[in-house]
């Protein structure tokens, strides 16, 4: 295991930010890479992408190199994941493994090179989404954690927290409820609304239980976009000032 030390600023699960959570990728040593990972977590419909876009502009204006990486966006896996979701052949294990493959592809090809070059990596969701989804589907916790032992502990994790009622209203007002976001594969309810509510409630419970363990910085997602952005900038600004990060 990676050398574990007591929690420090932004540390999680006893692992220092910028280090592998578990066994890591032996052929890719990352010690001393100057870049930073800032992850924004939260369920569907909490406004993550808006916040990331605004953060990116703000950081770039200051001269930082920034890359974004987002869930299921790897070129290798995106078509397969889309295909698998549109068919009925996914089970909870293959679901979890496809996500992990997507994550590994992006980690090796986008995140690690960016860290090496001293960039700030803005992650639209990180492993916590995968951990929550796997947990809700009843996959063994130890197995999932080991699976993501190749992931790198982020320097900052912001969790945009929302309550179930607000979330339902927001999703309905924007794009409606879809099969997977509603956890219909879990057969919690026949009705999509009831299934969505039950599924998202379980997810929210998982995120909450991870908040302490992984040192999430919790933000109220019900606040106005500008207010959340301001808070993000304040905390990130402080972190960057304290760390060795300099604009490139």
């Amino acid at each position, binding site marked *: 295991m990676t050398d574990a030390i007591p929690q420090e600023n932004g540390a999680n699960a006893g692992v220092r930010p910028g280090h592998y959570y*578990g*066994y*890591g*990728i*032996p*052929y890719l040593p990352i010690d001393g890479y100057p870049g930073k990972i800032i992850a924004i977590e939260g369920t569907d419909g909490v406004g993550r992408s808006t916040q990331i876009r605004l953060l990116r502009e703000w950081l770039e204006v200051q001269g930082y190199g920034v890359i974004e990486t987002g869930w299921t966006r790897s*070129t*290798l*896996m995106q*078509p*397969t994941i889309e*295909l*698998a979701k549109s068919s009925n*052949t*996914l*089970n909870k*294990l*293959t679901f979890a*493994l*496809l996500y*992990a*493959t997507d994550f*590994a*592809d992006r980690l*090796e*090809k986008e995140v690690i090179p960016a860290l090496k070059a001293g960039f700030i990596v803005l992650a639209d969701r990180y492993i916590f989404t995968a951990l929550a989804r796997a947990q809700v589907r*009843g*996959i*063994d916790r*130890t*197995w999932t954690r*080991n*699976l993501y*032992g*190749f992931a790198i502990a982020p320097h900052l994790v912001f969790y945009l927290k929302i309550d179930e009622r607000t979330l339902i209203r927001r999703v309905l007002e924007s794009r409606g409820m879809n099969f997977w976001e509603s956890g219909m594969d879990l057969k919690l309810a026949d009705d999509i609304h009831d299934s969505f509510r039950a599924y998202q409630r379980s997810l929210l419970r998982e995120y909450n239980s991870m908040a302490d363990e992984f040192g999430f910085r919790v933000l109220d997602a019900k606040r106005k976009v500008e207010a959340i952005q301001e808070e993000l900038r304040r905390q990130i600004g402080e972190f960057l000032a304290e760390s060795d990060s300099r604009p490139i």
Partner: protein
Amino acid sequence: MFVTEWNSSALVKAATKAGKKKNALTPMTFSLLHATDFADRLLYNIIPPLKAGMIVLADRYAYTAFARDATRGVDPRWVRELYSFAVRPDLAVYFRVPIEVSVDRLMARRVKLKFYEAGMDMGWSASPIESFRIFQGRVLEEYDRLVEEFGLDVIDAKTSITEQQRAFRKVVTRHLAGAPEEQVEPEPVEATEAR
């Protein structure tokens, strides 16, 4: 009786194919894609016949991943834990062949060596044959370790097909004789949760 082959699930075929074509797979994504393929086949092709009391013949099993992924530099402990959802086979047979025999047979078949099969992704040699020799040589060393660790039954694959088959049947017969007839496996579905 049911036969299942390594890397044959429809689910990950597209990604594996695309990745292999562009030589875009890293040791980690190579490993994870094969695990996904295995999980898919385990749940659809392996567990149902086991539950029905059938014999499943698996052409390669998790040991292939243990040997190859470790050779590619993936952490061996991680791969073992990754496959902990797999059902432990009742009998695992390893057909052992020295690397030179393996190379000779490939040359005789005059087939073009595949990029990943020859371990070209490791960049150890620009020559496919030489790369195969180095890569598969190391894979074979890993297998020797696995024989110890998992108690695999070894069959000498230098000999003729007939002789190998004879030896193979002997091992299988001995194993089946020791097992009660009409044996139905205990339910292994929630292998990950049972740990």
